[in-house]
């Protein structure tokens, strides 16, 4: 990368910089005319004589002449500001494009880091470098060349004017420049050093804050928050002193500059005055020089400010770049090349050594060969170098010496296009990306966009705009919204078959039951045909529940004429749900239509009083508990944040009745709505209330209903979007007073689903399960299986597994067999630390302290080439 900011600016924006200079030059005559014109107006038009004047062939009297000049002035004002605006926009544009280019380049370099580098840098240091640290450069780049050129030019013009008036005065004017020229850079140099320290200090602060967040459990578990705070306080102090030093020097520079600027007139008055008195120069000339000198201050100040910004930005640039300009980056072609080299033949390591120093496990002269299609266990504990050897085999680490070859090709020379598409690598703790399960499974197929993004109406200009901007900043030309899944790599031909392959892989790794359950909890959007089939299933389930007393004992179905005691008062009253699933029951009373309806139907006072009674009971039940008891949290349906409000309402209620404020009434109604009679048994919802609610239901449907779009009503014949698939299928509530009712009904649904062959669509709905940030909504073993499924889906030529499924228990054993089954006929390297597990494999390598201790390689039919793989990019 360009080692200095100016080289970077010049290399990528010389054309723009020239344009900026040109526009600035153009604006100078304009500015000059604009200064001249008022003089002309005053002297010539207002005070002038001898009219009419001839302007561009027209004879004009005084008034029209004045008007013409004034409009010309107006026009110039507009033009001048227009030019300024254009110039500023253009500068901004240039700066922002350069900033984009820089950030892109930086991140691209991060992706080119070799693996060991990531052990040396922390993400909380890298992130601010790419984001906030370079931010200021954008503003500076537009000014980088134009400002010094023109302010310097202006300064020169004024100076030569002074020199022309009188060389001696000219000398006086520049007499102190050498002093400034000596002092200011000296101070600035110190500022630059400090600025570097400041950047490093801020990075270390970011790093510590990041550590504090990642290690928050440890901090609390060890009571070390005081230590962390002290550590941060210490760093903040350093930060403070650095900044204090910087601004002291900055103001010192300003001080010197101002002092010297105001000192020069001293020479003018003394020397100039002397010269005037002696009659060596005219008084007029002295005045002119003084005026010119005053004008000198402007550009000088600008230049100084520029000098300081420039120094600041250069430091920022350099302190960022030095972290990315590493000598051992992967070559750029490794990332960008789209050429897939066919890998055929054995995987061979020839005296491969790798060391990172610092006592980390390493590989020492490892020599082994795994024939094509063989499954080989790599056995060794954490310190044996097993993981390193497997990383080397995957091409993720580069050996210090020796060669790793596949079919005679040195894999270090291969591009990521080959390594990443033909080799699968799964280690314990593999990263799961935020997004859906589907995103994660398809992740291994997203190498390049396979189609152009579908042009939505009116989106074409936007796409073109994005592309040209990307081109001018050397950014990625690929459209992220295009389709990226390489169907053929997964052996599929279109979206549907790919989904099918994904589901096949999921069942191979034994994740299908989990995904089926996720599917049951998913909400179905669109898919009209599927909903119809599901509604058919709902009807069948409903029939069975009605006819089978055992099932009927587990579920209370939704029935418009009957109160459902296993459901909340809210669901009973609405006989529906808020359309937005994120609206909780307690928030329903915030809906105006709902409140208006309650008042109309006379239920308002009833619900308020139920809410009040419930609140009283809650306060009575939980009031005597100590503050640290978690019983209230788990059982009371008044949140601890609502408690103060509730207590206030109850106190007021006790001290004589007034009109209850609207907000308080809503709060109490919210409490009443949450009651599930079968569960809470507070005796506040009696049969009379139940009857009233059932009656109000129909009125609610008529008066409010779905018209507002805020509510969705239950209807046996229609899909209820805010409900999960499972709740839609049950179309009722598992009974609150029956043990394990939900589990038992789920079991029954499972049977019905299989009967009606709906398992697959539900599995597909499960693919849209959101896995959370870094897969946090999955369990550890689910994450591992997702990572395995991701690798298997892309049908790798060679699969390397390090850690997952390597236990001796039956669960791991089954998974291991499934992996081997899926990799039948293709090469598999399987890392494990249990020799017993290793002995399951026909080939095995045992590592100890980085050396091959034992090699078990039976005769193997030599196949030069695997079965033709359905590898899209190969064809």
């Amino acid at each position, binding site marked *: 990368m360009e080692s200095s900011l100016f080289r970077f600016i010049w290399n990528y924006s010389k054309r723009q910089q020239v344009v900026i200079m040109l526009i600035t030059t153009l604006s100078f005559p304009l500015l000059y005319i604009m200064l001249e014109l008022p003089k002309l107006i005053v002297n010539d038009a207002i005070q002038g004589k001898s009219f009419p004047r001839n302007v561009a062939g027209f004879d004009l009297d005084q008034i029209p002449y004045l008007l013409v000049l004034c409009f010309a002035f107006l026009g110039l004002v507009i033009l001048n500001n227009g030019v300024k605006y254009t110039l500023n926009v253009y500068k901004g544009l240039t700066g922002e494009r350069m900033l984009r280019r820089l950030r892109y380049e930086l991140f691209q370099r991060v992706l080119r880091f070799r693996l060991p580098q990531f052990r040396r840098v922390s993400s909380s240091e890298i992130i601010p470098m790419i984001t906030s640290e370079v931010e200021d450069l954008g503003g500076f780049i537009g000014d980088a060349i134009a400002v010094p050129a023109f302010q310097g030019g202006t300064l020169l013009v004024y100076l030569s004017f002074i020199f022309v008036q009188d060389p001696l005065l000219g000398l006086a004017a520049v007499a102190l420049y050498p002093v400034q020229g000596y002092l200011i850079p000296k101070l600035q140099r110190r500022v630059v050093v400090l600025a570097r320290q400041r950047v490093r200090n801020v990075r270390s602060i970011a790093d510590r804050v990041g550590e504090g967040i990642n290690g928050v459990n440890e901090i609390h578990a060890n009571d070390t928050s005081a230590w962390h705070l002290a550590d941060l306080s210490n760093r903040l102090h350093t930060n403070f002193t650095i900044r204090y030093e910087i601004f002291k020097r900055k103001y010192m520079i300003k001080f010197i500059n101002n002092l010297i600027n105001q000192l020069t007139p001293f020479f003018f008055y003394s020397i100039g005055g002397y010269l005037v008195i002696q009659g060596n120069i005219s008084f007029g000339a002295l005045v002119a020089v003084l005026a010119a000198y005053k004008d000198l201050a402007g550009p000088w100040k600008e230049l100084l400010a520029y000098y300081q910004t420039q120094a600041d930005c250069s430091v920022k640039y350099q302190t960022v770049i030095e972290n990315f300009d590493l000598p051992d980056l992967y070559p750029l072609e490794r990332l960008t090349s789209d050429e897939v080299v066919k890998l055929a033949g054995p995987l061979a390591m020839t005296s491969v050594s790798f060391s990172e120093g610092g006592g980390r496990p390493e590989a020492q002269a490892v020599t082994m060969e795994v024939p094509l299609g063989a499954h080989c266990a790599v056995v060794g504990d954490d310190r044996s170098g097993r993981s390193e050897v497997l990383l080397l085999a995957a091409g993720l680490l580069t050996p210090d010496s020796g060669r790793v070859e596949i079919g005679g090709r040195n894999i270090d020379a291969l591009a990521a296009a080959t390594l990443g598409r033909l080799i699968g690598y799964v280690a314990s703790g593999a990263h799961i990306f935020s997004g859906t399960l589907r995103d994660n499974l398809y992740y291994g197929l997203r190498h390049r966009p396979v189609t152009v993004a579908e042009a939505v109406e009116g989106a074409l200009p936007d796409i073109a705009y994005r592309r040209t901007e990307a081109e001018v900043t050397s950014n990625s030309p690929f459209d992220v919204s295009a389709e990226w899944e390489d169907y053929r790599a997964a052996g599929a031909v279109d979206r549907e078959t790919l989904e099918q392959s994904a589901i096949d892989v999921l069942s191979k790794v034994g994740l299908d039951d989990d995904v089926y359950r996720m599917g049951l909890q998913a909400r179905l959007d669109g898919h009209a045909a599927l909903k119809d089939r599901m509604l058919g299933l709902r009807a069948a389930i409903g029939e069975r529940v009605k006819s089978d007393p055992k099932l009927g004992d587990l579920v209370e179905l939704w029935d418009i004429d009957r109160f459902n005691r296993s459901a909340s008062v809210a669901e009973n009253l609405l006989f529906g749900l808020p359309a937005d699933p994120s609206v909780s029951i307690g928030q329903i009373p915030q809906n105006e239509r709902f409140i208006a309806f309650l008042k109309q139907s006379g239920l308002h006072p009833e619900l308020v009083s139920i809410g009040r009674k419930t609140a009283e009971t809650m306060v*009575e039940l*939980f009031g005597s*508990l*100590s503050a640290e008891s978690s*019983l209230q949290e788990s*059982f009371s349906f008044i949140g601890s944040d609502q408690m103060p409000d509730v207590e206030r309402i109850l106190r007021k209620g006790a001290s004589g009745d007034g009109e209850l404020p609207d907000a308080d009434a809503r709060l109490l109604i919210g409490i009443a709505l949450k009651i599930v009679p079968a569960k809470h*048994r507070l*005796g506040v919802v009696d049969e009379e209330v139940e009857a009233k609610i059932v009656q109000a239901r129909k009125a609610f449907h008529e008066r409010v209903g779905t018209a507002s779009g805020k509510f969705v009503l239950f209807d046996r014949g229609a899909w209820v979007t805010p409900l999960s698939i499972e709740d839609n299928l049950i179309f009722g509530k598992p009974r609150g007073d*029956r*043990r394990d009712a939900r589990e038992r009904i789920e079991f029954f649904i499972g049977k019905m689903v299989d009967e009606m062959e709906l398992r697959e669509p539900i599995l597909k709905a499960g693919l849209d399960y959101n896995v959370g940030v870094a897969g946090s909504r999955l369990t550890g073993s689910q994450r591992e299986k997702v990572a395995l499924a991701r690798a298997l889906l892309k049908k790798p030529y060679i699969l390397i597994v390090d850690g997952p499924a390597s236990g001796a228990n039956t669960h791991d054993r089954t998974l291991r067999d499934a992996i081997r089954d899926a990799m039948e006929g293709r090469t598999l390297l399987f890392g494990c630390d249990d020799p017993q597990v290793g002995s399951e494999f026909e080939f095995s390598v045992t590592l100890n302290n980085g050396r091959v201790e034992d090699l078990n390689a039976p005769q193997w039919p030599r196949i030069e080439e695997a079965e033709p793989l359905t590898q899209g990019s190969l064809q």
Partner: protein
Amino acid sequence: MTIDSEVDTLCRVPLFKGIDAKKLRLLAFISERTCFRSGEHLCSQGERGDSAFIILKGEADVVVTTESGEQVVAQVGANDIVGEIAILCDVPRTASLVAVSDMDVLTISKESFLKLLKEFPEMALEVMRALAQRLEKTTRDLSTATAILADQAAG
């Protein structure tokens, strides 16, 4: 079926005899009320015990499965508390509970019960007293049984 009616029952459970109604109300509220049909298992021998049962209505057989087959060792009914041992110490269920009629049962989870004991030490004391009495009775029974056995051996 409200917690108030449940509290009436709880008052009659010997274990909760000395505890005031207010706390029993809380106990009732944090318990789950479930009904069981005749023949259903409340819990099964050998599984991890995570809750105790307070029987409000109906009867259940205490069934122990031995090598010689299933054997009903006792019967429990209204106002009885069963399974409390399992929530005080981590032991698997020593017997199955099978409903012999339709039952209403309050199920209190181990977690809630322990939290409650922590909150109200006098309740813990009461539980301790009840258990001590039971132990004392068991010990007395055991010594009687030992004496009888010794007599038989001697005779």
